[in-house]
Every structure is written in C-alpha cells, then in structure tokens.
C-alpha cells in the first residue's frame, strides 16, 4: 500500500498523538492501534470503560418519503419495521447472496435513516445504496467526512457519560435501551447517542460533527478520569469483538460468504413481503457442504491466527500421507488470539459441516504444530447481566 493511501487522519488525530498512541493503517486511515498496552486497554473495557475513536467508519444518510422502502430493498432486513430511535444490525448483500458489508441502521425519523458502514467498504456501500435507491423517493448522502464517531464502552460508560455536563441527552441515558438511539446536544451542536457497540459490553456510540469531536473526547476523558476510563486502540477492539463472537468484515464476512455460513441467517428476512437484493440467492442458500463459522477454544498460549489451516486429525502430514494420501484441511482460521479475558486461545474458523458440531475436536496447524481445539458455541464471552 502506498504512503498516500494511508494518510487519512481522524479529526481526533492530534489528541491521539498527544496521548502517545501508536498508529496502524486501517482501510487507508492512520488510526490508534494502542496507547500503552493492548491488554490493559482490553481489561479496562471489561472492568471499567474505554474510549475509542471510530471516525474512520462511514456514516451514510438515507432520507426521503421512500427511504424505508429503499432500505427494505437494499438491505437484508426489514428496516421499515424499525421504530423511530431504534437501531438494527443488517447486511448489504450481493445479488448472489454474498455480503458487500455489514451495517448498523438507525431510524432517526419516519423518513430519516443513518446507515453506518465499515471504513473499508465505504465506497461500495455508498455506491450500492445509491444505485438501489434509484427507484425510490430517497436520497443517499455520504456524511462520513463531516462526522466523527466516539465509542465509550464498558460497565462504567453510562456513569461517565452522565457526568459530561455539557452533553445534553434527549433521553436520559439510564432510559436509553440497548440498540436505541437518541438525539442530543453538545456545545450547541447536534450529537447522536446510540447504545450500541462492538465489544460485548454495555456502551455507547456518539456521532458528532467533526468540529466538536476533540472537545467532546476531552470532556469524556475528564469525566472518566476517576472511573478507570482509558483511551483504547484498534488492537483491543479486535480482541474484545473476537471474545464477543462478533464477525469482522474482511475476516469472517465477504462477498463469497453467505450470511447463513456466518451464523447470520436470522439477519436475512425471508419473511419480508417485498423483494430485496440477494433474496433469490438467499432463498436457495449455500450448498449443504459449505463451510460454517465456528468458535474454537484451545489450551496453552499459542493462538491460531487468520489463515492457519484446521484439520480433522491430529496426525502429522507424513503419517496421514503414508496411510491414505494427502489430507485436505477441514477448515481455516479467520481470527484468533490468546483471549485476554478467558486466558486461553480462542479463534473463529470456517470449517466443514462434518466437524462443526460443538464438542468436536479439531486441530489447528500453528506453524507446523497441530494444536487440538474444541468447537464451542459463540460467543466465547458474555457479560454478566
């Protein structure tokens, strides 16, 4: 990747530099990968709170009297059924039933929706939504450049946001339910506060005009100073979402993956009484031998990583070849790490249906060593409610 491709900077970049962040290229953006320690940031989110800059993500407005109908056609879910102030996880499918992107949709008014897409898919999501809305009375506007996104995640997040006195929430945060959104004001500017996230903890995501992003970030950090709030980077975000069993586009999701393979069959609403892109292919579904996404848990400290093969047998290649010829892998790891919360290695992998049942033992080829792993239900981690 050329240097110029990774020169997009968050409106919060100066804050991160001042906080001593290390940066990584993510979808062409220079984003904080960690501030001090991935593990400390991970544990802070599980036990107190973390604040994340997600300004690289794409915010796409869909507005107009036909916006709900347009989204029903463009996405796999029935977005017209959303109440005002409600959020929904959905999928933008290819005509062949694969996944262009996974998105969260917020209904802000009868005729006003916000679609939040992955940074890496911003162009594709804007293009597909625009193309698919053509026949409807709906306008698609990419508002990403004007919008910063700050996430506050962890059990302490509500108390911290309640102490940001300059943040005037429309609905008291204690009454804002999970997957709901409320409009708010900060420094006389409009802010959206959603009770959503990607960590497996309680938490909030705040969509804010870029010109007040820095002052809001600073106000939250100050409000959280006595509560264990730390700035957290993308490294901890990845281990948090992995423990929570949440797929990442590009790792678990892609254009060649059917939602049903990823355990997201329920997101595709085949009961919807209108047509949508990918419907026909989704009705036929993946074929019966298509690999499916599973959780793998193992012992020790060596984690399976993206791209490592998964085998049904622990015998070495040489033994198997002598017995019955070369043996193909039964799957491939898509994400993996030594789980900071659980203390043992975890991974997500696409495996053959024959070895996908929970309790099945498979073997991850960790750079030449076959490490036994047990198929387990996702998520690996669920917070105490």
């Amino acid at each position, binding site marked *: 990747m050329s*240097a110029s491709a990774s020169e997009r900077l968050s409106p919060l970049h100066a804050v991160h530099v001042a906080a001593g962040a*290390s940066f990584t290229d993510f979808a062409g953006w220079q984003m904080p*990968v*960690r501030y001090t*320690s*991935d*593990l400390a940031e*991970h544990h802070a989110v599980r036990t107190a709170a973390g604040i994340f800059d997600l300004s690289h993500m794409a915010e796409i407005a869909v507005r107009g009297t036909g916006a709900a109908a347009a989204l029903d056609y463009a996405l796999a879910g029935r977005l017209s059924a959303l109440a005002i102030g409600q959020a929904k996880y959905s999928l933008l499918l290819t005509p062949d039933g694969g996944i262009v992107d996974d998105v969260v949709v917020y209904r802000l008014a009868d005729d006003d929706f916000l679609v939040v897409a992955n940074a890496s898919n911003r162009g594709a999501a804007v293009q597909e939504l625009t193309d698919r809305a053509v026949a409807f009375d709906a306008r698609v506007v990419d508002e990403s450049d004007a919008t910063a996104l700050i996430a506050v995640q962890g059990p302490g997040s509500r108390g911290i946001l309640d102490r940001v006195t300059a943040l005037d929430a429309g609905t008291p945060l204690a009454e804002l339910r999970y997957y709901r959104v409320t409009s708010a004001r900060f420094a006389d500017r409009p802010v959206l506060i959603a009770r959503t996230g990607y960590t497996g903890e309680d938490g909030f995501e705040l969509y804010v005009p870029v010109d007040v992003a820095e002052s809001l970030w600073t106000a939250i950090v100050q409000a959280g100073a006595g509560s264990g709030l730390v700035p957290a980077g993308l*490294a901890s975000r*990845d*281990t948090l979402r992995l423990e929570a069993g949440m797929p990442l586009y590009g790792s678990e999701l892609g254009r060649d993956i059917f939602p049903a393979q990823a355990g997201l069959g329920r997101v595709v609403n085949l009961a919807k009484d209108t047509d949508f892109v990918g419907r026909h292919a989704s009705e036929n579904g993946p074929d019966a031998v298509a690999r499916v996404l599973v959780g793998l848990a193992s012992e020790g*400290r*060596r*984690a399976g*990583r993206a791209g490592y093969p998964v085998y049904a047998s622990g015998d070495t290649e040489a033994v198997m070849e002598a017995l019955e010829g070369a043996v193909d892998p039964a799957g491939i790891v898509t994400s993996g*790490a*030594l789980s*900071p919360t659980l203390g043992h290695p975890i991974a997500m992998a696409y495996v053959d249906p024959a070895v996908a049942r929970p309790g099945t033992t498979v073997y991850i080829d960790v*750079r030449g060593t076959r490490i036994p792993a047990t198929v387990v239900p996702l998520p690996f981690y669920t917070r105490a409610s």
Partner: protein
Amino acid sequence: MTDYPDTLRYAAEHEWIAAEPPFRVGITRYAADALGDVVYIDPPAVGTTVTAGSAFGEIESTKSVSDLYAPATGVVTEINEAAVADPSIVNDDPYGSGWLYVLEVSEPAPTLSAEEYQALVDAKP
C-alpha cells in the same frame, strides 16, 4: 534510561546480544513496542545450534507472531523460564529480566552499536 543501552550489541532484526559472556539474547525496546503485549515466547531449546541471521524460535503478541533471529552462531545453553512463564516481562524490561536465552557463541556475526541501531530505527517511517 536510554532505549538502547551502550553496553549491548544489536542486530538489524531487532535482537540484542550481550557484548561479553554470558551472551544473553533478547529483543529490543523497538521490537517490544512494535509487537505490543507479548503473550507467548518460544525460544530455541537448550542445545539448539543456531546460525546468525536465521530464524530460531518465535514470539507472539496479542496481534502478531514474529520469528526470533539469532544474532550470532552458537549453541543455546539456557532459556529464560521466567519470561516463558510470564512473557509480559519482555515488554516491561526487555534488556533486563526480559532476556530470552543465552548463547555460547562459536562464531560472532557483525552487529550494530547502540548508536547505529538507533539510526536504523529512526530511519523507519
């Protein structure tokens, strides 16, 4: 504290080696910071003959896996069991308690001074 003590010699692959026996080997502050939190170390086993510049052993952080490169040719005589048991000491003290193994050097390889190594990492983007 300097990031790169003058008392050590450095390899371009971001290992350090003691200037005199016993020749302890570890990873540099630069490598420790770039890896993030180290969660697993697999140093070459005692008795292994390693060749300068070749990969022997691995080090894993939450985010990545890296090979360990031998900074000289020789035989491994000891590994740091404390660091294997608690890899976080590699981040906390890469030149002290976070050493990885001891090498009985049979053939030294060209290494960098602290100043030369500093210049090498400064030249990185």
